[in-house]
């Protein structure tokens, strides 16, 4: 009878461990963000080796092509390990290594300006925190906190975009007209150029730019206050909209944030009773 019970238990569908699942989705989307930059890495690898720029502002090692190679591959490898490992120690270690590698990318002469590495860095910080908390016996509370932190980070990133646009050049549409409407090869702008006169395009650019400023401002200030699932859904829609209406290169900036937003979907629908802490669940590598 015991044997039958054991076999039956093995055959039960694998139970999802929400924090592990959320953690792995974020690692996966970090990898999508990193490898969306594959062309950047290949070309940068060649260009930085052949055309070094001596600038005393940066320390030598933060201008070196070797540093950027190690940081990029180190982060990718660490994130990949974090994605597949079931070892708690390895997960923590790889999260820290990923954070360190991406930190280097954020201050290296050849990559500091790329917002991809800033959004990945915030996802890595979230990952480090979560990797150190997974052993808790209060999985629901942990998941609520993880979701809260995720929408706080997304709000901050959107607020960062908004605050720098509270200037007349964005309200008039002048900046985005030059960046996108003049010659950007992307379906929205190709369509608009084919169908509207230059003066009409300026007017469209003005309203396009105002829409960007308003959406970023409202979501930057308010997204973190929404309930988890609503915040996750709205963040996913807004972030996807930014890519669909701007340019494909933003996939690298946005993909990891979409993964981070998904943490909200793992929050239990109903708050657990305060006096019944959930027992610690053994991690299931198949389910997670």
């Amino acid at each position: 009878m015991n044997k039958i019970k054991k076999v039956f238990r093995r055959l039960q569908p694998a139970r999802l461990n929400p924090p592990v699942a959320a953690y792995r989705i974020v690692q996966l989307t970090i990898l999508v963000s990193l490898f969306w930059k594959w062309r950047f890495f290949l070309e940068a690898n060649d260009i930085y080796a052949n055309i070094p720029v001596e600038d005393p502002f940066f320390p030598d090692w933060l201008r070196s092509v070797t540093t950027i190679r190690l940081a990029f591959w180190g982060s990718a490898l660490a994130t990949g390990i974090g994605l597949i490992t079931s070892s708690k120690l390895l997960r923590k270690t790889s999260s820290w290594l990923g954070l360190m590698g991406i930190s280097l990318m954020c201050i290296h002469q050849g990559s500091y300006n790329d917002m991809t590495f800033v959004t990945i860095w915030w996802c890595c910080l979230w990952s480090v925190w979560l990797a150190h908390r997974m052993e808790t016996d209060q999985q629901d509370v942990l998941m609520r906190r993880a979701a809260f932190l995720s929408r706080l980070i997304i709000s901050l990133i959107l607020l960062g975009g908004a605050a720098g646009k509270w200037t007349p050049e964005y309200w008039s549409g002048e900046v985005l007209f030059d960046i996108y409407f003049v010659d950007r090869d992307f379906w929205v702008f190709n369509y608009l150029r084919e169908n509207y006169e230059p003066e009409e395009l300026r007017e469209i650019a003005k309203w396009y730019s105002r829409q960007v400023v308003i959406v970023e401002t409202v979501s930057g200030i308010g997204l973190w206050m929404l309930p988890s699932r609503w915040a996750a859904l709205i963040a996913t829609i807004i972030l996807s909209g930014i890519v669909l209406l701007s340019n494909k290169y933003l996939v690298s900036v946005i993909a990891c944030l979409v993964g981070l937003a998904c943490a909200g979907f793992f929050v239990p629908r109903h708050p657990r009773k305060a006096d019944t802490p959930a027992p610690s669940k053994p991690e299931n590598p198949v389910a997670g």
Partner: protein
Amino acid sequence: MVDSTDTSITHDEQQRDLGFCCIVAFIGMIAVWLLLMPWIPGIAKHSLQRFHLRTPSFSVWAAQFPIPSMYNFANRYKVEQYPPDFVMMILDENWRYANHFPARVITFFAGRYDFLSSKQDRWFTLKSSYRGQILESKFHLEPLEEGGYRLIRIDEVDQTHE
């Protein structure tokens, strides 16, 4: 819309979590910095200098990397084959906008390839503006015999208020 069970900083049943509180406080500090930027010219000036790689110290510049700044400020750049005071003035029609960190046209892979493959001198002018505050920087990229370029900052201070 705020759900106190979701925004669980004060959730009854939670254990103390210093890491969580530190990250929330860190985010709060950056949010305050961003929200004050339009009203405190010093913050905007600091951020404009960050964009032009003109922060007085590299450490201070590097410490700001977590501050998100996607498509911030009106950043224009101009690339010329002759010094800015060359007699044959080139009209200002060469100005283009850059989304953020306009010095990227010198350092980032695509700009570096486009403008610095020729192994000839190049002069870059960057101009960023935010709510009437303008920062202009000029850089001379001098080719080196052994390959690559040396970046020389032509002007150190050129900050005006419109």
